[in-house]
Structure formats: structure tokens, C-alpha cells
């Protein structure tokens, strides 16, 4: 091994920090993982479902994989009369039940040394002063180095008061090399105006590059794989345009209802809850042009470009659909309709199913409809992106031979059963020429899932590393609201209530009509 070129390679590669290059790093050394530097995480709303089921297990999994810094600190903040030990127990239970990787006492002991709990309510100045002291103590005892992230796992109406408290107590102040970051979860407002207001509130306390908006779909391996499939392969790109693509259907369906979520969901509805963030982000990944590099700036530039070119297709009365599930037997279980769910207004006009039609006004996509749909209490839990191709312009067969031939389709199964399905026609064995649809499966999930990290692991680690590419920026959020707002306004002004659909079905009649007007149908995912 010639070592003469080592010094030269070191200057081009390595971990460049302000002109200084770490001699122990080398871009060819792909084994070395990125471990977050000294830091701590403060979670607001540790008693919530998200914290227990996702955040705490993800933190343990990261520790278990050796990706958290030695001396990492986790501080919980909530209105509970807990001591540090009670908080330990809560995290322990959450990790035992929900962590992905096996429990190792050795790892747990090290992690648990960094747990702190601060009791208090959001309007309590003393509590935030105590939090400030706790964080300063952690810097001294655990060596967190003044680097702290604040995870707001709380309802958005509590954001202003918490952010104000962070500013007042000096917790949001960043000096020199130290960083302070804030993580917020959807919803980012409920329309363009409120999104702007929210952003102003956050922006007053934290600069934009310290704000990490979590859209957990972007942390999923399958979604990141869309970019790999499209830009690392040769055979998708030539047909990835309106010459060959007939339409794109993006579906996110859930089989569960909304029992217990009235406080959040009533008055918000499916379109705001899912289409504005997850589905439009998926659309951006599918439709974007190739970025000049995979740096976060370039990726975002392409995503924003494609979102700016995305428009609704009208007339909205015919090209959109909304529904609300009614009670009935779903998969062997008697379930109630939305208006009978606990906490919902019996007259509630909130939609639990929403479908819209978009188009992307670029040379690549002109004329290709993008259908986006989401709903609760649908047939099964599934998220997928289906790219449906045009029929072959000429079929050298008799009509009877291709009766059973559908359209070719390329389906990315985002969850569950992650993978890719390709549907095409094949000859049926026998002495007649007869062509029928078959599928070819790539089971990403089948063999890879056990080792592929949870979305939250990836996102929390990226946030601690300050790597922003998987987090939507404010421009994307605002642009998504601009796209969706007219639909919601149209539904509001029409005065009609959402169309009912039975629990366990694939949505209301109006959704089928919306497709039928152009001679298409929804895929059954």
C-alpha cells in the first residue's frame, strides 16, 4: 500500500471543520460511523405516546448502536410529580417494550446515568429556571459541552409559551461553538397564515438553521430509497416522464379509527393531517429533478422547485373527494363511526378521508395527474406510491389475447412490507397466446428490516449531528399549504358535509367518481 499519497488524500477528504481536517477520518474509511458530538436532549411532553413509543426507544437504540456520544444526557420535562427515579422507570418501560434492538444492561446503565427530570408546567418560570440549572449541571458533570436540543413533543398551541420560556431562561442562547436546536413535529400550522405565524414565533427564538421539523416519513429507508432507485439506476430515468407515465397514485391508508384523538383531529381532518406534509413530500421525491449532489441544500432546492411547479387540478368539486367513516363491521370487529367516537362533535364535519388531484407543471410531467389520497378506517394499513404507465401504443395481438392485460405499474411499498413491485404482462402457459398481468417483487422489508433503523433513530441522530437534509424547511411547509389551502376553502364554502363511507372500505363513492371522470380507477393497494 503506497502511503505517499495519504497526506494528499487527507486534505481532500476528511472531516472538514473550518479548515481543520481530522487526521483520523478518511472518506474511504466507510466503517467509521458518525457519532454525535457531546450533547444533551430535552424532551417536552415526555408523558405523551410519541415520546414513549418512538423517541425513548429510538434514543436507546442509538446508544446500543454506539452512535450517541459518551456522556449523553436526556432530560424530561412534564407536569408530573416525579423524581429522577420515576423518570428512569418510565424510560426503562418504554425501552423494554418498544426498542428495536436487544436490551443490554451495560448500554442501559451508561445511558441511564444521564437521565434527569424537571417537573413543572409550561407557564412556570421557576420550572424553566430549574431546567436551565439542570442543563448547566449536565455540562459540568456529564460534559455535554453546552450543546442541547429541545424536542417539542407537545400540542402546537403550547409552542409559543414554551419558546418564550426557552428565550427568557436563556436556554435558547447559543455562544461560540455551542449549539441549541429545537425540534418540532407536525402539524406546522393549519393553513398558510397560521404556518407563517408559527414560523415567526419559532424564528424569533431560534434561527432557521437551528429548527428541525420532523416529518417522520422522510426518515424511512423506503423513502430515501426512492432517490437511490431513481438516480442510481439507468432503466427508470428514460421512462420517468409524461411520454410513458399515465398517472401517479400516492396512498396512505390506515385501518385504525380516531378514538381518543378528538382533541387533535376534530376540525383538522385528513387533508391537513397527512396530505399537506407526508403525501406532498412523497410527491416531491417522485417528481423532482436530479439534484446536482446529495447535499442538503441541493436536495432542498430540487424539492422546492418541484413543489413550486405543483398545482391543483380543477374544478375542485369534481377532482377532490372527502369522506367520513361510519360504523359497522370491520375485519371481524364492530367499530363506531367518527361522530360516535368519544370526544367528537356528533355533528362533526371533519373529513377522515381526503383525495386530491395535482399536476406538476414541468416539461417532464405536463398532463400527468398525481392522485393523492389518505384516510382512516380503510381496508388495511398501507402506504404506497404507484407509478402507472400508459398502455403500449400498438399491441400486435388480437383483442382477445390481451383482455386480461392491465397497465404496467411500478409500485414503491413504503409500509408495511417495504419493497418494490413491478407489474407487467406475461404469456399464460399453453398453446394459445394469452397475456395476463404478473408481478415481480423486491422485498426490501423481507430481509432488510431487522437491520434498518427506525425513522426516528435516523432523524434524531441527524438532528444531533446538525445534518439537515431530511428535514423540510419552512419554504416547503409554506408552499405545501399554498397548494392545499384552496381545497380546504372549497370544501368549507360548499357547506356540504363529507360523504359517508363504511369502515373497512376504500373510501366514499365520490372518490371513485373523481377517478372515473378521466376513465381511471384507484388501485386496490
Amino acid at each position: 500500500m503506497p502511503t505517499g499519497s495519504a497526506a494528499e488524500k487527507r486534505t481532500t477528504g476528511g472531516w472538514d471543520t473550518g479548515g481543520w481536517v481530522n487526521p483520523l477520518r478518511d472518506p474511504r474509511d466507510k466503517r467509521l460511523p458518525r457519532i454525535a458530538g457531546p450533547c444533551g436532549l430535552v424532551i417536552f411532553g415526555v408523558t405523551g405516546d410519541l415520546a414513549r413509543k418512538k423517541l425513548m426507544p429510538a434514543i436507546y437504540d442509538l446508544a446500543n448502536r454506539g452512535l450517541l456520544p459518551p456522556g449523553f444526557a436526556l432530560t424530561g420535562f412534564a407536569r408530573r410529580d416525579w423524581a429522577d427515579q420515576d423518570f428512569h422507570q418510565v424510560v426503562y418501560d418504554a425501552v423494554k417494550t418498544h426498542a428495536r434492538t436487544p436490551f443490554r444492561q451495560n448500554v442501559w446503565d451508561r445511558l441511564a446515568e444521564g437521565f434527569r427530570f424537571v417537573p413543572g408546567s409550561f407557564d412556570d418560570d421557576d420550572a424553566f429556571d430549574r431546567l436551565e440549572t439542570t442543563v448547566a449541571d449536565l455540562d459540568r458533570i456529564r460534559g455535554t459541552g453546552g450543546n442541547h436540543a429541545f424536542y417539542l413533543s407537545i400540542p402546537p398551541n403550547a409552542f409559543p409559551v414554551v419558546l418564550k420560556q426557552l428565550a427568557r431562561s436563556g436556554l435558547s442562547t447559543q455562544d461560540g461553538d455551542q449549539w441549541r436546536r429545537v425540534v418540532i413535529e407536525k402539524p406546522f400550522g393549519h393553513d398558510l397564515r397560521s404556518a407563517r405565524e408559527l414560523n415567526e414565533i419559532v424564528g424569533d427564538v431560534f434561527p432557521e438553521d437551528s429548527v428541525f421539523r420532523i416529518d417522520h416519513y422522510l426518515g424511512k429507508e423506503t423513502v430515501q430509497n426512492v432517490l437511490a432507485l431513481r438516480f442510481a439506476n439507468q432503466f427508470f430515468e428514460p421512462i420517468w416522464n409524461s411520454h410513458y407515465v399515465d398517472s401517479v397514485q400516492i396512498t396512505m391508508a390506515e385501518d385504525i379509527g380516531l378514538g381518543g384523538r378528538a382533541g387533535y383531529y376534530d376540525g383538522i381532518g385528513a387533508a391537513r393531517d397527512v396530505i399537506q406534509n407526508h403525501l406532498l413530500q412523497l410527491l416531491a421525491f417522485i417528481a423532482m429533478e436530479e439534484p446536482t449532489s446529495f447535499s442538503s441544500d441541493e436536495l432542498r432546492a430540487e424539492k422546492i422547485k418541484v413543489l413550486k411547479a405543483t398545482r391543483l387540478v380543477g374544478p375542485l368539486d369534481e377532482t377532490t373527494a372527502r369522506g367520513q367513516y361510519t360504523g359497522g363491521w370491520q375485519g371481524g370487529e364492530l367499530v363506531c363511526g367518527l361522530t360516535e367516537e368519544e370526544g367528537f362533535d356528533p355533528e362533526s364535519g371533519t373529513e377522515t378521508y381526503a383525495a386530491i388531484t395535482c399536476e406538476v407543471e414541468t416539461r417532464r410531467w405536463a398532463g400527468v395527474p398525481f392522485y393523492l389520497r389518505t384516510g382512516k378506517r380503510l381496508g388495511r394499513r398501507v402506504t404506497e406510491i404507484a407509478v402507472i404507465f400508459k398502455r403500449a401504443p400498438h399491441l400486435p395481438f388480437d383483442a382477445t389475447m390481451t383482455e386480461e392485460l392491465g397497465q404496467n405499474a411500478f409500485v414503491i411499498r413504503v409500509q408495511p412490507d417495504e419493497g418494490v413491485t413491478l407489474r407487467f404482462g406475461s404469456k399464460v402457459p399453453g398453446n394459445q397466446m394469452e397475456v395476463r398481468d404478473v408481478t415481480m417483487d423486491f422485498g426490501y422489508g423481507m430481509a432488510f428490516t431487522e437491520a434498518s433503523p427506525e425513522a426516528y433513530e435516523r432523524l434524531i441522530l441527524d438532528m444531533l449531528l446538525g445534518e439537515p437534509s431530511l428535514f423540510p424547511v419552512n419554504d416547503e411547509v409554506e408552499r405545501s399549504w399554498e397548494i392545499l389551502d384552496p381545497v380546504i376553502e372549497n370544501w368549507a364554502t360548499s357547506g356540504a358535509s363529507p360523504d359517508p363511507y363504511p369502515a373497512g372500505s376504500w373510501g366514499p363513492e365520490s372518490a371513485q367518481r373523481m377517478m372515473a371522470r378521466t376513465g381511471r380507477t384507484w388501485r386496490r393497494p
Partner: protein
Amino acid sequence: MIVDLPSSTTSAVNRKLVELRESGGVLALGRVLTLVIVTDDGAGIEGAIEAANSASREHPCRVIVLARGQRRAAARMDAQIRVGGDAGASEVIVLRGYGPLAADEAGAAMVMPLLLPDAPVVAWWPAEAPAVPAQDAVGRLAQRRITDALSTKNPMKAFEQRRAHHVAGDTDLTWTRLTSWRALLATALDHPPHEPVTAAVVSGEAVSPSTELMAGWLAARLEVRVKRSRAEQGPGLVSVRLDRASGPVELVRSDGKVGSLRQPGQPERLVALARRSVPDCLSEELRRLDADEIYASALAGIGAVTRGRASVRTSAAGAPS
């Protein structure tokens, strides 16, 4: 499911694999690589298969275990196919060759027809390995050759062979066991103060290939004086000290489980740093199918390491410093 094919041939094995796929709908198409495990017939086989099965959850593969049986016997090949629950996410083919079929060339000829089309081949010697893996009959079929000096009868001798005969594509699990140490050290240098390292000391057990390799890596990367010393206590690699103008960065693991990171002006930080299991190491190895240049340079760097005579004392993790 386990299917035994006594006194068989590779074409019969291939036929049976296709038959199993058709009748049981079992797997086999999404495989990304073929892993050939070369070992002597005996108790070690199951441990190696288990490690391969657990690695296959991350890297779906076809595992071919080439077990060399009695040389003084009649020529015979026994085959066994494991699929489904008995094979993790892989399919396992165990080939036992006896008599002339226990020889290297004949073994490679048995493996050849069972390699997956157009997919990389990785060879793994879980215990004793040939002196020059790249020139071995099976080694020549593979892009990647994995050995484990520590599990041989004479680890230092095996490690010296690795050093002397390194070819791009070879790696030894000695190197894999260092990844978490290397990551912690590299991360420690990522953050300010960004001062050059002026000297380094690595200490460990008297017989510890990993300690040698760590010293070699630091010598190659830092191009400063690196001293390798004996540690008074602790298994394997025990401590690394990087001297800088503002004070040393030290990573110490004296009990084989918990590491302690010490930096000037910062509190001591503990980190779980247990010695890694073989399945864990194998998973990491299979993640890389290209040559590991950094490993090569670390091997080359060992020549520049100086030997310390006095042994190094390290205070235990968690002790007041």
C-alpha cells in the same frame, strides 16, 4: 426445513434447490451475495452457520459451508440444505467432502456450481485460515476474504501472516473489533480544540493483534511517534492516549466492557464498549464488499510503531481521576 442429501453431487443439490423453491415457494431469489464458510468438519460448524444466519438478516445471502472431512476415506460428498426457519433469512448449503474431496481444489470445484449468478462472493475462515487467503482455491473465487486471527491456535502468528501477505479484499476480524474504538477517537478529535496530535501510546495484553493494529492505524494516520505498551490489567486492547498541546485525549477500557473517555477540561465520560461478538463483526464485514484501503494502511503502519518496555498502568473506569 433441513434436507439431507447423502453421497450427492452439486447438480443434485442445484436440482433440489429449484425443487424446494417451486414446491415450498421458498425464497432464494432476492439474495445479494454468496458467503462461503471454509472450515474443518466438527463442532465449530454450527457456531459459524449461526453467525452467518444472523448476518443474513441484514444481507440476504446464500451460505455455502465447505466442511473438510476425513482425508483418509473414500471419495464422497454429503450435502445438506437448510431453508426457512433453520436458515435465518438465508439458505444454507453444507457440503462435507471426504477423501480426495477434502482437498482445497476439489472443495472449490464443489462450491463453484452453487455460487449465485452475478453476485459477489465472500469467503470466510472462522478459525484456521490459509497463509495467503488470496491464493487459496476458494479464496480465488471470492472478491472478499475474511479471516479471524484471534480464533486461531496462534493468533500472533496468524496476524503476522495477514501482515506479510495482505492483498486488497482481505480483512481480518481483528480490524472489525476496533471500529467502535476508532469511531470514538475520531469523534473526540472532531471537536475543538483542533490541535495536532504530537504522540500516541497504545496499550493492551501482550498477545493482542487488535492492539498492534490500533497502533498501526494511528501511526499511519497521524504520522507521529506511536508507542505500543503492555497493559497491567484487562483483556485485549486496554487504552489509547493521544497527546495534544492542551493535554491528552484518553480512551481506557480496563475491564473489557466499559470505556472511559478523558479529555482535558472535561468530566470523565463512560461509554459501553464491550468486545464485539463474531456475528456482529460479520455483519459489519458484509456491509463492505470493496477493498478496505484503510485496513491495508494500518497493517503497513505497524512497522513504524515503537515498543515500550515498561507496562502501562491505567486507573479503572469510574474511579476518581
